[in-house]
């Protein structure tokens, strides 16, 4: 595998957060730390109609994101110790915990908010694509947990061949910043959201 990536089917995702909890259980991460997160996005307004009725163009969707193992990872560029690095073999962005001093520059740099500093462990932590599982021929825990089969993972070129998609949906950061290795199948609501005001409504949960 030259470069690892994720596939995410935004049309199927119901925002259930099974991926988040499966990952947290597998890695026994503390309550505030999650390597994968689900953002709730919503928008739309209401209009009063005849007979006291109402109409609305309200919509909502979710975005499940872990680390996108970017081609040009901001966290790696910002890391003062080279602890944060891109594995040459599979393109997975990993933390060398022996080098990491827990300064948190990676947290500030990443536009996806993927790395965290685990204060108890004293170093940065993040999604490393369950690389041990990959080597054993297993899928990452989040992928094999999804009740909607909305996630996949593997070589990004093969994912791009297998699935149609995009690198970003609203309000994700511009993909040109870090070149994320993700293929997203956008939902109708996410496509609509580009022309609307849609916001993340669960900032305390991500």
């Amino acid at each position, binding site marked *: 595998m030259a470069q690892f990536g994720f596939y995410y089917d935004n049309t199927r995702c119901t925002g*259930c957060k099974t991926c988040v909890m*499966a990952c947290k259980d597998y890695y026994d991460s503390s309550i505030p730390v999650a390597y994968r997160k689900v953002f709730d996005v919503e928008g739309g307004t209401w209009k009063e109609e*005849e007979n006291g*009725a109402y109409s609305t163009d309200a*919509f909502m969707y979710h975005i499940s994101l872990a680390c996108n193992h970017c081609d040009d990872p901001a966290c790696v560029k910002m890391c003062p110790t080279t602890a944060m690095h891109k594995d040459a073999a599979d393109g997975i962005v990993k933390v060398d915990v022996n080098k990491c001093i827990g300064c948190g520059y990676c947290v500030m740099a990443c536009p996806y908010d993927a790395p965290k500093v685990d204060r108890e462990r004293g170093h940065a932590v993040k999604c490393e694509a369950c690389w041990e599982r990959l080597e054993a021929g*297993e899928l990452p825990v989040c992928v094999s*947990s999804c*009740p909607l089969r909305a996630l996949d993972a593997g070589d990004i070129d093969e994912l791009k061949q297998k699935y149609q998609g995009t690198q970003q949906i609203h309000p994700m950061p511009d993909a040109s910043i870090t070149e994320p290795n993700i293929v997203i199948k956008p939902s109708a609501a996410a496509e609509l959201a580009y022309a609307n005001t849609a916001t993340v409504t669960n900032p305390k949960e991500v």
Partner: protein
Amino acid sequence: MEFPSMSRRSFVKTTGALSALAVAGATATAAGSLIEATPALADEATSPETDRFVWSQCNVNCGGRCIFKWHVRDGKIDYMLTDDIGNADFQARACLRGRTMRQWVNHPDRLQYPMKRTGPRGTGKYERISWDEAVQTIADKLKYTIEKYGNDSIYINYATGMYSATGRTTERLMNCLGGYLPMYGDYSTGMHQYVMPFMYGVGTSPYENISASSVDQAGKADLVIMFGNSPAETRMGGANVVWDYARAFEEGPEVIQIDYRMNEDCSGTVDEWLPIRTGTDAALVAGVAHELIKNDWVDLDFLHRYCQGYDEETMPASAKGQNKSYYDYIMGAGYDHIEKTPEWAAEITLVPAAKIRELAKKIHEATNTFVVQGWGLQRHSNGESATRAVCMLALLTGNLGREGTNSGMREAEPPGAPVGSIPSSDKDPNGVPMNMVKAKISCYSWLKCVAEGSNFQKELDAADELALFMGAQDPEAAAAAAAIEAPKNGIKFLWNYAGNCISNQHGDVNLVYETLSDEGKCEFIVVVDTFMTDSAKYADILLPDAMRAEQLNMSTNGYSEYYWGVTVGGPAQEPPFECRPIYDVFADIADKFGKKDLFTAGKTQDEWIKQLYEAGAAVDPLLPSWDQILAQGVYKRELPTAIAFQKNIADPVANPWKTPSGKIEIYSEALDHLAATRTLSEGQVIAPIPLFDPGVEGFGAVTEEFPLYMSGWHDKARTHSSFGALEVLREYNRHRLWINPVDANPRGIKDGDKVRVTSPAGTVVIEAHVTSKIVPSVIAMPQGFWHEANMQGDKVDTGGCINTLTTYVPSPLAHGNGPSNSIIAQVKKA
């Protein structure tokens, strides 16, 4: 979803945990267990001393039983995997809740020892006692209660926190001791399950696949109309309804989600959600019906051939010429004499008249329409009318009995499961006898029965009433109904195993506190659970249960999962502290009466599981052998599709509906008879046809003091109140009150504000979520959050339990929990 081929490096540094990933089976090692004798299946790469996998299942009541693959290290569960067997599309993958089960099992707040109450009931003050003292106290109180008040004063409360083949043995214990006061119905479907037989006939139930179609049929429809159905939050597992609908919808039907809030099944969609005021679905149906009739879009041949009471032509003799048909209701010739125009419906439902006309047109133009409802709609004070009304959309247009259609009931459920449970009585004449008590009560009436004591009146269930009405059609059922008695002394002893329906999941928590505080009424309460739930705070004796992960567990496909399966495995770890399996505790209690051998039939729990499994395998030859199921842990197979009432529609003469008329009864004489003979509370309605009735605390009941309608829903953070102790679920799914900006802005409420919600029953403090995902004039919050209040002080609930706000008015027909979603309220900044 197949994983693309990848270059694989060899395993250089493997930990025990990772090398164990390849292990397929699970073995338990508890000394003396049945499992010990079976061949060990550990992979060579695994050290069974330190790492092993153990199969188990989720045991809560979402309807599913997702499959757990516990990873155990050094005798302790350290993480969970889920069903990873075979075809990825047919795996019972655990949802977010299931994936936190390790934290439940290993939670520091688990109940650890038997305890007795030291403070007032409901305040949660306890001290540790020995198991000997606990068992002796319970046995003494049982003897006292049986002698003084009779077995019909001992009630086993409705509880669904634990499903397992050996999980429910309280009834068996009590049948060893002369019986108990049984209950009927449930808190999930009470109104629905007791009214639908009046329309679709005796035997119609939410828990079968005759009266409803399986979800795959939705994929064969052009149009799917969902009323308040959100499996993305209720039935979330990987072999559960959410996944079945996801696949069906990808086949391309147009989907319309009628709901007062934008539920998670609407995620990512545009124009799917049709917002409606809570509790007014029957008015929407009436408006659509008017449009169908006006445009001559109804299927008259279907209605005349298969149904009674659509119009005068098929009215029974007793009701002819009185303008009591459904047609006369809709067109304004009968009942309230109002024509049910879309404009009339718009005012009630908030759905614009143009949208109502559009919906009627869509149904008319579709070849096959699949109409389906969730269970929240019937959990209203008018639920008994509303749940039938939804079915009218299918009946008016003849969308029944063929591919791509449904009866309007919730999607089909599997016809049982491959293995049974420990029976409450034995067929063997020397075994445990049947319950001797002739009284019974509705599951929701227990609090009334406690309060009223010997004044509590006989309370037949609606199926009994229907049997009495049908009389000669089934004399045996009619005779059984006639023999039912009232409990003589109310409820004096209350059993509560693994459930939270004493307070949190009942209605009107403050009334519960008031009623149970009087220890002269219900004299003794035993609760068995794993946490100090709000219900547990009412226990006189509180016992710590062992989790099913700490015992050999056998369970099956859930009642809502449309497949056939069984899982056997465990224990994954030993019970902590003094937690004990309830089966062993009940055997000890039976022993105090000299009935231990009767209760156990000479078997340990593990031996019961083997016998129950082999009994199932004897009638289902496709099941693996006992040794084989122990080795593989999991057995599953798919079920054939189901189409609602297919046989009846194909040949109604050979297969009549089991109603008094043999037809689908849009007009029910039996209901008309009950409407005339039952004493009802103010605002309650029993109607012979599925009309719109506002209900108690329903449409039009708002006041200056309580100007908003309020409802609850089942959200993803918990299954009812199960998982409620887990911080991680609370942190990632914040408990919030949904309020539309139309209602929030004039109150100065902003997203994230703390607000006080007050109803006629109580007050809750909660965080506000100002959102367009809820219809104006309605506020809502998820049910199941744990009540947290100073019951000797202001009783303000900071935990956010919706039943602090519900009133306690059992529904008119089923005596069920109709008020659950019918609340009026006010909200202010806290």
